[in-house]
């Protein structure tokens, strides 16, 4: 039985175990989603959007869909993956199961809790009905698959006029309790008018076993709200991640998603922004640093529907050995979206001959009074800069690392949490093999 059949045939049992009211909207949504998935199946290289990312080898694994969880995991096992230097709310999931013991949730000023309870409690029915699966793309078989099996994940519901006092960290661990595991976390983030929240998300495999995570996050940003969402992707070499994040913004809001891809076997980021009002700003930042046979695919979409909005997109990539990168940046400026400012930049450095990047800026502009720009570069290291540094006594290897570090630095500069910034800097230095004698 292949993975698709296995998933489809497990659906009934899954729903029955879920304890959901079969008359609820969510049940209907799931049912529709599994039907869509059954019709569409996994995307293949024949799909334009998947031309450069091949899921096939990954789908051959005999994944456990509902892994047993490892209760023995304690704080000491996970603390390295938390940003400990800051006070934060934490949502910790172990093998797809929420760990209330390790987490720090709240219902005081806002709800920072889990979607399993939001899906079942009457208190949250309105929020779920209004938002759940409303922007996760229909007929996208992978997010449909996640929707069908939605069970656990973060539920963050911020009322209006609330500045969440500390960042929220969402960590998904897999412990290797089974040899091959598929996880499908589902996050829902609703940020009310004038509110502000910072979120850090990470997926981490604690073992050498194989993991495939198919994660979906929906983020709703209301009038004048500000959301900063940071994704740390530094997983082990047997871990793969398909992340689909959908952002819907109302007027005058600012939403930023930052993606740091350093690890993992295969990572696919689908990031989609929908602007539903005027004077909206959307920021998309990413940096990939890959080696060996790692693969990272950043697929982004910004859909400008209203006038006077902005989008700023900056993706950088450093590819060594036989690693491959994909960047597909689609920007749609609809006819009504006059006075749009849309900027996209994608810079790549190939360190070794075997490394590959497939970059595709894709601008579809239907309005005539707009400022749109895109720049895409693929290059090697700047030899003049290398010689300059060497001539000052800095050995070649260190000069290379320092240059690469500096190349990625403007993405790091955009991090607004200082402790996170220094952690990301450290991860970058580690991944480049630099021993920096100073903090940048």
């Amino acid at each position, binding site marked *: 039985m292949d993975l698709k059949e296995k998933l489809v045939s497990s659906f009934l049992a899954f729903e029955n175990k879920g304890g959901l009211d079969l008359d609820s909207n969510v049940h209907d949504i799931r049912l529709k989603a599994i039907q869509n998935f059954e019709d569409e199946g996994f995307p293949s290289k024949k799909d334009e959007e998947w031309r450069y990312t091949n899921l096939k080898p990954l789908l051959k694994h005999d994944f456990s869909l509902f892994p047993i969880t490892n209760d023995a995991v304690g704080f000491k096992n996970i603390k390295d993956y938390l940003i400990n230097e800051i006070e934060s709310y934490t949502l910790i999931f172990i093998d797809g199961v929420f760990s209330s013991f390790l987490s720090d949730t709240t219902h005081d000023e806002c709800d920072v809790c889990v979607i399993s309870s939001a899906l079942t409690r009457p208190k949250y029915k309105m929020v779920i009905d209004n938002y759940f699966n409303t922007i996760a793309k229909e007929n996208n078989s992978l997010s449909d698959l996640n929707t069908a099996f939605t069970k656990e994940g973060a539920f963050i519901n911020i009322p209006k006029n609330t500045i969440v006092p500390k960042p929220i960290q969402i960590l998904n661990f897999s412990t290797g309790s089974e040899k091959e595991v598929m996880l499908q976390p589902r996050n829902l983030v609703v940020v009310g008018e004038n509110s502000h929240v910072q979120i850090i998300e990470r997926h981490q495999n604690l073992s050498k076993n194989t993991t495939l995570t198919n994660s979906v996050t929906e983020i709703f940003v209301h009038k004048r709200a500000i959301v900063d969402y940071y994704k740390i992707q530094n997983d082990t070499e047997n871990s793969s991640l398909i992340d689909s994040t959908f952002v819907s913004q109302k007027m005058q809001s600012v939403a930023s998603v930052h993606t740091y891809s350093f690890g993992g076997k295969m990572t696919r980021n689908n990031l989609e922004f929908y602007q539903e009002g005027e004077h909206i700003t959307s920021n998309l930042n990413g940096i990939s640093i890959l080696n060996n046979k790692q693969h990272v695919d950043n697929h982004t979409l910004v859909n400008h529907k209203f006038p006077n909005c902005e989008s700023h997109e900056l993706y950088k990539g450093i590819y060594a050995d036989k690693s491959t990168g994909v960047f597909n940046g689609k920007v749609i400026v609809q006819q009504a979206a006059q006075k749009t400012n849309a900027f996209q930049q994608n810079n790549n450095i190939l360190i070794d001959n075997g490394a590959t990047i497939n970059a595709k800026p894709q601008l579809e502009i239907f309005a005539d009074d707009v400022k749109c720009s895109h720049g895409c570069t693929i290059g090697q290291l700047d030899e003049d800069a290398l010689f*300059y540094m060497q001539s*000052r006594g800095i050995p070649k290897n260190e000069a290379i690392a*320092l240059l690469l570090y*500096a190349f990625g630095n403007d993405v790091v500069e955009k991090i607004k949490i200082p402790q996170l910034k220094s952690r990301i800097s450290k991860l970058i230095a580690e991944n480049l093999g630099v021993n920096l*004698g*100073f903090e*940048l």
Partner: protein
Amino acid sequence: MLEIKNLHAGIDDKNILNGINLSINAGEVHAIMGPNGSGKSTLSSVIAGNETYEVTEGDVLLDNKSLLELAPEERAHKGIFLSFQYPVEIPGVTTTNFIKTAINEKRKANGLEDLPAKDMLKLIREKSELLEMDRKFLSRSLNEGFSGGEKKRNEIFQMAMLEPKLAILDETDSGLDIDALKVVANGVNKLRSKDNAVVVITHYQRLLDYIVPDFVHVLHNGKIVKSGGKELALELEKKGYDWLK
């Protein structure tokens, strides 16, 4: 101190230097002048170890040891310094961090411990004052958005920090206004001692009013066609280079 013997070098299949002989002793200042394309910058690049150029014949010796097999950083550790005609911008690395790294690498290569932070700061303060540098440049990314003059000043600041045995100033005067030129020249003069030497590469005599050379050499078609004292520079200024060809 530095001995250049019958040096031939080029890029790809093109010969640029066609047999240069030059001997520089400690305590001396040499000026190398010449028209565009005469090989001035190639000579400085070859001494500093730029691998773009291939040395086909001859040798370059520092204290009787050949430099040619050494990487640029090893040459730097032995005391060669090249002030670039076009200093490179390195976004993301501050001037302070860059120079700290450079100094400690040099110390490491010479078997010394890292310079303690306190001493480093003191040194930075001292040398930046010598060059009348605005302190805010030190915390900015190296050369990023600096004007031509600021970049050159930064080069001499780094030279002052690294205290090289042999400093080569490649067109350091270009892009400098007269006030900045005086400051930079003053900086170089203060760093002169009986133990080090300076090679000034320039188009114009102007800089040599402030950094007075002991010897002036004229380079043409990759060869030194005339050498003399500082008065040669004035003569060149008056007559141009044509009479030497």
